[in-house]
């Protein structure tokens, strides 16, 4: 709720002189800046201690580790921006991952593209269930998706039982998506970057993307303003489902086994990544690019602490400190903005 949304086309024209200062100012006030600086510092320090961290294999591992959480964090950011949350993403990923494994076993020779499409459609359906429950039942998303977290996981357990599908059951080309690189970048990471760019453009440029921010800032005002709140929130959940589905397919490509417990507990990492990346938990502000960087930062911390041989048990504590730090930064920023707005509005009156 730290930024207010201006109705398109109704802003007063800014004088050219102050435009330059605004650009520098907006870079300095970029919500993503702290997380990017932290990431750069982290990588450099770790590299100084252990040069292997930036070896080609090290970079590849770092990017691969971030890929799946990155896609999930982008989806989560879309939902959080509308002042909702989706805690069922770990379970959606699990169901889609097991579904992907099943597809390859049941239909040998199925085209990989078809698997991607089916995985995303499956994810979209599961996301739509969340969205419909949230918008029609008008119950907070926190409660609804906590419920679907268990329901989807229960379905996964009933469906999979003790069955697991292994890398061996899938075509080599599919597994190679997360092995092969282009200019040092793993293919699936490039896919994730593509997703981030597309979603970022939509969120920043498209009218329906801007609507999501308006809804998150003040749902009642958004409704009064004529924004189709129900439709947009549903859209956010479906988009998140599609991305969780994509992440599920990619998970299957990268890891050895998919089964009943795949993706358990992932939702908290994902929400943490979005929050650390500057997406305000109360909605209305933040960006998907920030969320993607948040995911990269959190997964890189785990890798970095291992590379410099810091005890595993410290890692979670450090993630916690980061979450608190980003919330404090966000709070300070919003208090300042509110004060500045009050002063300038008082002057204008």
């Amino acid at each position, binding site marked *: 709720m730290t930024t207010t949304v201006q109705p398109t086309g109704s802003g007063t024209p800014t004088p050219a002189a102050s435009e330059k200062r605004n650009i520098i100012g907006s870079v300095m006030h970029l919500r993503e800046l702290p997380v990017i600086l932290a990431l750069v510092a982290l990588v450099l320090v770790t590299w100084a201690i*252990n040069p*292997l*961290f930036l070896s*080609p*294999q*090290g970079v*590849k*591992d770092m990017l691969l*580790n971030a890929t799946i959480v990155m896609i999930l964090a982008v989806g989560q950011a879309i939902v*959080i921006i509308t*002042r*909702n*949350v989706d805690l069922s993403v770990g379970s959606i990923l699990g169901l889609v991952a097991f579904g992907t494994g099943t597809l390859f076993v049941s239909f040998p020779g199925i085209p990989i593209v078809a698997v991607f499409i089916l995985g995303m459609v499956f994810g979209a359906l599961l996301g739509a269930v969340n969205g419909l429950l949230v918008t029609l*039942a008008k*119950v*907070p*998303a*926190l*409660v*609804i998706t*906590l*419920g*679907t*977290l*268990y*329901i989807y*996981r*229960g*379905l*996964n*357990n*009933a469906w*999979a*039982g*003790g069955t*697991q599908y*292994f*890398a*061996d059951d899938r075509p080599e080309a599919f*597994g190679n998506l*997360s*092995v092969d690189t282009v200019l040092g970048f793993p293919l699936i990471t490039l896919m994730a970057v593509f997703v981030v760019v597309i979603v970022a453009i939509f969120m920043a440029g498209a009218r329906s993307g801007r609507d999501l921010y308006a809804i998150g800032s003040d749902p009642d005002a958004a409704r009064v303003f004529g924004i189709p709140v129900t439709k947009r929130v549903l859209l956010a959940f479906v988009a998140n489902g599609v991305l969780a589905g994509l992440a599920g397919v990619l998970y299957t490509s990268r*890891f*050895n*086994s998919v*089964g*009943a*417990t*795949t993706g*358990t507990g992932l939702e908290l990492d994902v929400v943490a990544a979005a929050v650390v990346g500057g997406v305000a*938990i*109360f*909605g209305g502000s933040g960006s998907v690019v920030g969320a993607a960087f948040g995911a990269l930062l959190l997964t890189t911390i*785990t*890798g970095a602490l*291992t*590379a*410099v*041989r810091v005890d*595993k048990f410290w890692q979670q504590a450090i993630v916690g400190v980061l979450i608190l730090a980003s919330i404090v930064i966000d709070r300070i920023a919003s208090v300042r903005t509110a004060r500045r707005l009050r002063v300038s509005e008082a002057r204008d009156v």
Partner: protein
Amino acid sequence: MELFHNHGTRSMRTRRILGVAALTASIALVATGCAGGGSDSGSTSGSGGGGDQTITFIPKQLNNPYTDVVLGGGEEGAKAAGFASSQVVGPLDASASSQVSFINAETQAGTNVIVIAANDPDAVCSSLEEARTGGAKIVAFDSDTNPDCRDVFISQVVAKDVALIQTKLISEQIGGSGEIAILSATANATNQNEWIKFMEEDLKANYPDIKLVATVYGDDDDTKSFQEAQGLLQAHPNLKGIISPTTVGIAATARYLSTSDYKGKVALTGLGLPNEMRPFVKDDTVKAFALWDPAQLGYVAAFAGKALADGTITGEVGDKFDAGDLGEKEVTDGGIVIVGPPTTFTKDNIDDYDF
């Protein structure tokens, strides 16, 4: 996130929220509850007291492929030994305290024999004591509880043999010298910790040139084990080999090695399931690994439970009981029953096994 922003006055709304929350929770409970019994082959739960003996298996974790093979043997053994009904209950996560509620439920149901693989040797103790007071016999298998809280422990093999075969395999594969690391299951898993202790002793005594530089824990979680393997190789650039004495860990590590630059440069051995390890043995990521036949473990556990429940044995050293197709088994020191020697799997013999 309107839960955080509730403005207090709308009590109607709050009530509705609570209602739906309760509904959602109960749907979720039903859904997960159904799943809990999913792996059990339709047997009914023991009513107890009716003269018919019942047996319940509580593995470390449900839906774990290794556990499924063990339990398959257990069901077969329970049928062959003459139990009226057998069932499997257990947690979906392998954490220390997760088994307690299942033990309590079995005590209430009056189950005659509880067969358990402990996630933590002490966490399950007090509830097992309660079950014994209620007349149940306790058979530990796969991973022991504290010896005071069970009647017998069915061990795969002699713990020391399991450790020695793994140190021997890694030594052969890295040429007898260099840095190695261990990637285990949970930090408090009884069986893994015992093997690791023997491995450390054996390395010190017999392989002076091999240095164990790290022991890490992947918690029997595929993703976590994968990333632990990755971390090991990054933190220890001179690492020549990894021992993973857990089926989840070795498969995840093999998957990482086979998809990275380390393939063929870093040796990997440990305990794995042939079906899961087959591709990695064939593509030369793994040269040799070991295991026993897990199904026999469950099978013997069922017969031991039957002998205890019938009163033919009490779990004293020297007690002998009939274990169906596997012949006669004897209770040795510490109330332990040994099933058989470990097998080494290589490219040449792996296709002879299907589990």
